[in-house]
């Protein structure tokens, strides 16, 4: 009972804001061409959902985000592990990676449009580029900061390199890897929104830009709300994963 009440507490402010927003709209304080009432936004969602337009746009955006994330995250993770484990690999690749990292990846948009046009490759490339660095840096940090005493214990107790990697290094680096993961998920949506807003012929960002052309403010607001919901969903999945795999961590014990 107490648990439920605590959970509800988080909803007080958002629900309150929506109620106030709706109230002001009904009173005519907020003109609908500036900010449509929440009910209008829901109606727009219903309309677009019924036509199937909404779902196809969400699907294509989620696909771009997922593929870009897997490619970029995979590359960042692989380099993070390699450079954390091998001095040679680190000397060879880390300076270059750090150099590329300093370029804001969204600054690449004009170049990316020239390279790939406005098709899928461009968006996936940008998402992958943006996502790879937080994963790379945090994986590298995690592997590097694994307790050297535990590694020595593993060696003294006859662990093979393989066992040492899977039972000590990887698990020890996991908390840091998750920090990178959650950070990367944020960057993933951000990159996709910008990329789709600037150059796309489908997706949530395109839907919002298209709606702006026709002054459909309710659809613009709807897109923003959906972005927020998807971002929250991705973050919740990451948190759930974190909780499931880090149950040994004192921060997650007895919860």
């Amino acid at each position, binding site marked *: 009972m107490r648990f439920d009440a605590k959970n509800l507490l988080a909803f007080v402010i958002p629900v309150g804001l929506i109620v106030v927003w709706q109230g002001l709209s009904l009173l005519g304080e907020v003109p609908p061409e500036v900010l449509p009432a929440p009910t209008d936004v829901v109606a727009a969602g219903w309309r677009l959902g019924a036509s199937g337009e909404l779902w196809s746009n969400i699907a294509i955006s989620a696909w771009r985000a997922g593929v870009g994330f897997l490619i970029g995250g995979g590359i960042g993770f692989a380099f993070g592990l390699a450079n954390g484990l091998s001095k040679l690999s680190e000397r060879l690749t880390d300076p270059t990676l750090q150099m590329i990292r300093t370029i804001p990846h969204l600054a690449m948009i004009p170049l990316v449009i020239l390279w790939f046009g406005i098709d899928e490759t461009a968006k996936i490339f940008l998402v992958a580029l943006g996502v790879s660095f937080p994963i790379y840096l945090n994986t590298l940090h995690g592997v590097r900061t694994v307790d050297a005493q535990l590694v020595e214990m*593993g060696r003294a107790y006859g662990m093979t390199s393989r066992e040492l990697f899977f039972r000590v290094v990887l*698990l020890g680096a996991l908390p840091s890897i998750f920090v990178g993961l959650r950070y990367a998920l944020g960057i993933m949506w951000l990159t996709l929104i910008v990329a789709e807003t600037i150059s796309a012929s489908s997706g949530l960002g395109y839907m919002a830009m298209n709606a702006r052309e026709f002054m459909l403010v309710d659809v613009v607001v709807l897109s923003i709300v959906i972005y927020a919901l998807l971002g929250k969903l991705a973050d919740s999945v990451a948190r759930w994963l974190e909780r499931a795999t880090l149950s040994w961590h004192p921060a997650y014990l007895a919860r």
Partner: protein
Amino acid sequence: MTARTLSSRSFASRGLAAAFSPISDRRSGEPTRLSVAGRGATVTLRGLSKAFGSKPVLKGVDLHIPAGQFVAVVGKSGCGKSTLLRTILGLEAPTSGDVRVADAAPNVRSARIMFQEPRLLPWARVLDNVVVGVGDRSDKAAARAAAQAALAEVGLADRAGEWPSALSGGQKQRVALARALVSHPRLLALDEPLGALDALTRIEMQTLVERIWREQGFTAVLVTHDVSEALALADRVVLVEDGAIALDLAVDLPRPRRRGSPELARLEGIILDQLFNAGARPGDAEDAPERARQEVYA
């Protein structure tokens, strides 16, 4: 009556060794001490030197440890005692000289180390941490059974399913002890494993280590800065000073030893004198080291 007493005693004292050793070929009812004698490794160091860069840490150490002996290595911090232990274990390579651990296959499994910190994997349950110490982990069920038995030996059978972070410092060190012993090592190296524990837990742990050592008959090398701990546990105390053995003292007292007995106090005096170079009593400044050497372990 006699037979029953004997068998229950021998079971209790053979404990770990007999409870799950797959290679145990000892017949039940055999006298305990005899049955485990010779399980320990013999350690021989000849002219062992070790330098880190240009800084010499060990300077030509000669030491012979017979099988089954409990040796304590004492000395001030930085004297090289931990390096000596790590070199015996093969965690450090000697710069020159020779380390021989005989009567045992020269693999890692025959020697185990307990560190000053428990060094448990925080993401593995207590039981799985002990499984790390099992030499042959290919048979998972057997490894887990062995680990469970080792945990029972250190009195933590009921904590097998917990995370290490739920244990106290002394309990963690007991898990580390179980992990070190689960593979029946012939040589157990103890690198100040009790240094971070509170005084009472420490005495408990000393008793536990002594009991298991007597049951299993491995060779034990304990590095410690606590002279009274060394005297409570060891057959022999080796004092390392500036990378060389300054004193090698036999402690030929019956066990279990009573803390604060006059004989222990006398030996402690000899060691502390040497440690602080205060052996220079009026008139015998010259032969203080000489006196010490007369008590050298043969």
